[in-house]
């Protein structure tokens, strides 16, 4: 498997950062960074990461189910993650979640038919004081009202969304 030059550089740096013989440490970061580039964790990726880290494919395989950010199936181009944990719940995240499911016609971990948007109910994402919070891919959006959410989704559909934390 070949990756973009930036990712290859990142991998080289990563493998170098652990003590000699401890390259297994790079398994989780490698899977996550590679998933961002190719969309999901494929069997081919599992074998590639195993080869590069000097472990068996099984040793790579076993961590995938553990980490909730690793996915075996492709997500949407924009992965919309809504936190409903207590701090967000207190200020209306459950209504926001219901609103999102209804408007996007998607359930938890479902992908829209055009592959543009996927939706996930997530646990605390570390934006409690600025709740309710969502993440679109890795961008934080704070104090998201249903109206603000609709504007964001419209921007995704119109391809006018710009990825900046707010």
């Amino acid at each position, binding site marked *: 498997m070949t990756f973009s030059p930036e990712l290859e550089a990142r991998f080289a740096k990563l493998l170098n950062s652990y003590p000699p013989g401890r390259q297994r440490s790079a398994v989780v970061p490698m899977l996550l960074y590679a998933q961002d580039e190719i969309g999901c964790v494929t069997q081919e990726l599992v074998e590639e990461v195993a080869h590069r880290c000097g472990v068996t494919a099984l040793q790579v395989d076993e961590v995938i189910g553990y980490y909730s*950010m690793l996915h075996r199936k492709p997500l949407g181009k924009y992965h919309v993650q809504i936190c409903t944990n*207590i701090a967000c719940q207190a200020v209306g995240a459950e209504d926001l979640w219901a609103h999102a499911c209804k408007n996007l016609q998607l359930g938890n971990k479902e992908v829209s038919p055009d592959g543009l948007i996927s939706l996930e109910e997530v646990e605390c994402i570390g934006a409690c*004081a600025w709740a309710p919070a969502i993440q679109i891919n890795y961008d934080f959006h704070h104090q998201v009202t249903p109206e603000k959410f609709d504007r964001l989704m419209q921007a995704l559909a119109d391809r006018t969304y710009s990825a900046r934390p707010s």
Partner: protein
Amino acid sequence: MRYNEPSPLEQMIISYRFDLPNPASIDTYLANDGYVAIKKVLGMTPEAIIDELKVSSLRGRGGAGFPTGMKWSFVPRNTGKPTYVICNSDESEPGTCKDRLLMENDPHQLIEGMLIAGWTIKSNKGYIFIRGEYRYLIDIVDRAIAEAYQRGYLGKNILGSGWDFDLYTHTGAGAYECGEESALLESLEGKRGIPRLKPPFPAVVGAFQSPTILNNCETYSAIPWIFRNGGAAYAALGTPKNGGTRLVCVSGHVNKPGVYELPMGFNLLRIVNEVCGGVRNGKKLKAIIPGGSSSPVLRADECDIPYDFDSLAKAKTMAGSGGVVVLDEDTDIVAVALRTIKFYAHESCGWCIPCREGTNWLKKILSRYHEGFGDESDIDLIAELANNMLGRTFCALGDAAAMPTAGFVAKFRNEFEDYLKKSPRFQPAPELAVV
């Protein structure tokens, strides 16, 4: 950047650079007391460094509040093995959002804190474990690390001391459990993040089977100030045995939620009423979850206490990670208890049976209760089940799930009982006549 207006009541000693232009750059840091402490520390012996930390009464900001100086003193220095310095920035405790600000706005302060730890145990390698969701912070911290290498604060022969120290970032990939120190080490080694049997503690057998200093991001960030101004000055800011300040993350039903740096021992009610502008919409306070979702809830009448580790422990709860969730009079406590246990059921790693099964059963019972199909015996069943999980697991996640659940039932039993009155009770199916 800050995401909320600072309060005039704040005492900023680790967050004062947040408002400067371009706060994450090394030039801003160097112009504002940056890398002063490490120069001083390079002339100190490990014993002197640890003594200074003990004087400061700095306690771990990740949740347990263990004295940092004592933790460092447990690291053996003559094993012949390499040693490691690790920062826990896995910040996943619901209600907590402080490490994010520290890494976004002042990554060099964290790097300097880790350098001081590195010098103390003559370690040559450090890792900053950042949760996967904080991808933009990995870029910021990587940039800061590169700047520090360029200026000679990391790498070979740091400031002419003959000592080498390399620092790297490491990403998690979505697991609350990896905030527990031994699970974090497993994850760092490329495995599933399941906790290790303790002892041996990470200070003795930590990363890669070697002695390790492992502290929270905020703990490291406080260390440069301590060595610039002295441990005694730091201790004087707080209450006895609870030195310094801490970043308190206030969320929920308040007018001005946000992250505020307050001296240890600041009154909890004053945090709500004065720092955060009171409960929003003129409502009355019902309860406060004082230290992240793992801490047992406090009723409004119990909230007039100093916010520090010992005072909250005396109130049978904990200051934990500093996540204060404020709940107003309209809050449905059963719904909060259910959401809390759903979280722990989702995050339980499955290693210990009391936690794996207990969280799931609590989730099932509370879901049924919340739907309106509970009965009176369920209230005691929830409390009993929670109490049977306590102390019976490898790591604190089982306790973290059981304590708040038992707390909700104990403190708000009346609300659980009221739920029975308004709920559609279970109706047995009508008996059909035998024909």
